[in-house]
């Protein structure tokens, strides 16, 4: 194979032209990608619909959230803070926030503090942590968004946190607290279940799998299936799931003292268990696991034949009594010590 310089240089120039053109095409696509601004289309649409106050769209809107980060959701959700856009005809992303926001305006707290998502992102998929953005906690959708109240509030201290109170109660009644303790990042009285906060956020489907079919994710699990418990009570399932979601959300540092401050407002939550100021008579065990193992657990030894009084300190259920406080005061520094 002899080397023909003329032929070779000609071929080289051709190839070089080809590669350079390919590179140019790539750069052109990259430029188009890089310069596209999906949010501008939303803002233009907002103005076109006659919803905007001015003809000039606001550009990227950034607010600081109460966890010290920033979010830019209101760049597209232009109506979120307005009361006048609550018309059925106006769809997302322009509609007003449906339950009135009160003091919880985006300017004060941002959106992600309650709704999750990636506040710094500006395209639909990423901001809402949709498919393909693995590893990011998904947005909290409607019934579950109430979980976020627990990031600052002690369940029961404010109207609107009833779901969390009900959830806490279910958590105790169904015996979740006995295995999945909430004390100081602790482990349940029977040493069984992992601490739910340590497991991190789980989707609705994952939560249901864990409740109905515990062995599916954790083959060694001794947890009973709660499928029969929730049969015909989908609302209880939602309430409990919301509560469990709430446990796994990090508390907002700015609000961490709110729990302590609001202790006085807690009568609602406490009275659920301490009826008439008495012991935990309001918590009938509904957990089949406990009921079936009564003998094995020697409940009688502590409770006596008939009454629920005189429980000894080391009874696992009594150990779960402390979690009962924590069911509402989770993450509250004052109560962890």
């Amino acid at each position, binding site marked *: 194979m002899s080397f023909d310089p003329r032929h070779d240089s000609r071929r080289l120039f051709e190839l070089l032209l080809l590669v350079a053109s390919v590179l140019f095409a*790539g750069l052109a696509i990259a430029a188009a990608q890089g310069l596209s601004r999906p949010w501008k289309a939303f803002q233009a649409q907002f103005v076109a619909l006659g919803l905007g106050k001015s003809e000039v769209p606001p550009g990227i809107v950034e607010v600081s959230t109460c966890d010290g980060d920033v979010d830019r959701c209101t760049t597209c959700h232009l109506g979120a803070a307005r009361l006048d856009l609550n018309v059925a005809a106006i769809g997302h992303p322009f509609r007003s926030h449906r339950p009135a926001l009160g003091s919880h305006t985006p300017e004060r707290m941002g959106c992600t503090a309650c709704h999750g998502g990636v506040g710094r992102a500006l395209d639909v998929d990423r901001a809402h942590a949709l498919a393909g953005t693995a590893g990011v906690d998904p947005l909290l959708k409607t019934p579950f968004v109430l979980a976020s109240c627990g990031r600052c509030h002690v369940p029961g201290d404010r109207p609107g946190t009833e779901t969390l109170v009900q959830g806490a109660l279910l958590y105790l009644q169904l015996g979740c607290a006995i295995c999945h303790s909430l004390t100081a990042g602790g482990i349940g009285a029977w040493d069984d279940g992992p601490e739910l906060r340590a497991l991190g956020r789980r989707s609705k489907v994952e939560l249901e799998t864990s409740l109905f079919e515990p062995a599916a994710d954790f083959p060694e699990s001794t947890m009973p299936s709660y499928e029969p418990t929730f049969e015909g009570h989908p609302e209880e399932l939602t309430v409990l799931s919301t509560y469990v979601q709430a446990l796994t959300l990090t508390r907002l540092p700015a609000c961490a003292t709110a729990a302590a401050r609001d202790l006085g407002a807690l009568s609602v939550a406490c009275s659920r268990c301490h009826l008439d100021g008495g012991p935990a008579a309001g918590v009938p065990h509904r957990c089949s696991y406990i009921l079936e193992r009564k003998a094995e657990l020697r409940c009688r030894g502590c409770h006596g034949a008939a009454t629920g009084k005189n429980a000894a300190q080391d009874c696992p259920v009594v150990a779960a009594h402390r979690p009962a406080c924590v069911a509402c005061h989770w993450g509250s520094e004052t109560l962890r010590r």
Partner: protein
Amino acid sequence: MSFVADVVRAARALPQNLRHDLHPGVSADDSPGSRLRRSFLYHLFPLRVTERALAPATTFGLGLVSVALFILLTVTGLLLMFYYVPTPRDAYGSMLDIDNVVTFGRLCRRLHRFGADLMVAVVLLHLVRVVAQAAYRRRELNWLIGLGLASLLVGLAFTGYLLPWDQRSYWAVRVVTELLGLLPVVGRAMQLVLVGGAEVGAATLSRFYALHVALLPLGMLGCLVWHLWRIRKDGGLAAVEVDPPTVAAWPHLVLRVSLVLLGTTALVLFVALVQDAPLAPLANPLRPENPEKAPWYFLAVQEMVSYSALTGGVVIPVLTALGFLALPFLDRADLDVGYWLGARGERRTVLVAVVASGVVLGLGTVAYLTPELGAVLEALPPWAHDVLNPAGLMLCWTALVVVGTGLRTDAVRPALRAGIGALFVGLCVFTLLGMLRGPDWGLASPWEAFRRVF
């Protein structure tokens, strides 16, 4: 008015003056070839190169691709520095901003990420080429510089990995710095120098940042220039012919080089157009992800470390490094230098060794993972766990292959090549296995592992 006339005259003569003044000694009608003689390029390229050096299959241009990637990484890295903030509080947010609100930021980050990935792969292949052609012969110094470049690259990839401050980077760095602490004598000091305190934290991030954007790239630039200069000093690519046919560097070499530079850039660009650079959730020092996986080029080490930190994380890497350092000083034969895998018979021996390694190491690893053998091994004392595992098997098998091949062929080179082949096969097995690791370090089916990645 003569002032105006002067300005007009100067302006009209500008193109010519520029050409003349900025290229001293070059006249407008010089051909590109003769210009090369006097220009800067002359200091990079020889005037003539051998025909063989131009044939694609000689080197596959791997070294050049690495140079192209180095340039790409430097440019994109410098741009990223404009926005990146190296503190634990702000780093992750600045990564999100680069991805989401910096014009061309996402592109830049992808180019940097995939460029780095590709560079690790290409440098590895470049090294394999040099070994397979015994091109280190009479180029001992450049071989050592090359190894220096490779270690700087590993350092860059590792330090860069921490910068996003996401779950993956945080835990990878925690594990690797812990691993460094296991090195004898200097380990603890190295760990302290890198971590800068008792825990991976702000001090670690600023140290890694300094290393990643200044110290290591500068070292790399220096070594790179030295490496390229040595190639010319050593008389071009390694070869055995006495008077090989040559061709002019212009245009045959210069255009090929341009082609490779542009082609590499285009390749990375197209990957960056379609694939997103990964970013895990914000680092959480209290909760590792499950499973916590290293980047692909560290998967083999992670897998070996999961058998034994000592064997897989210290003994094997140190021995491998020493082996590579010693390579050109052990193999003193001048035969077939510059040709793929040398003589026919030798090729067969190496091939047999590689295939046998695949079988032995593959089967050995599978056997190790069976519960039956696991139960037997568990009963043994702790020190036995450090030896009786796939990494230990690889080590012993490689030693066996080196000695066996050496005795059979009575030559050093095939023995070393077979040994390196065995090592690579082992590392491939471990990398594949590492890809299959799922939650709680259990093994997932290939399909599931594939789905998790895409």
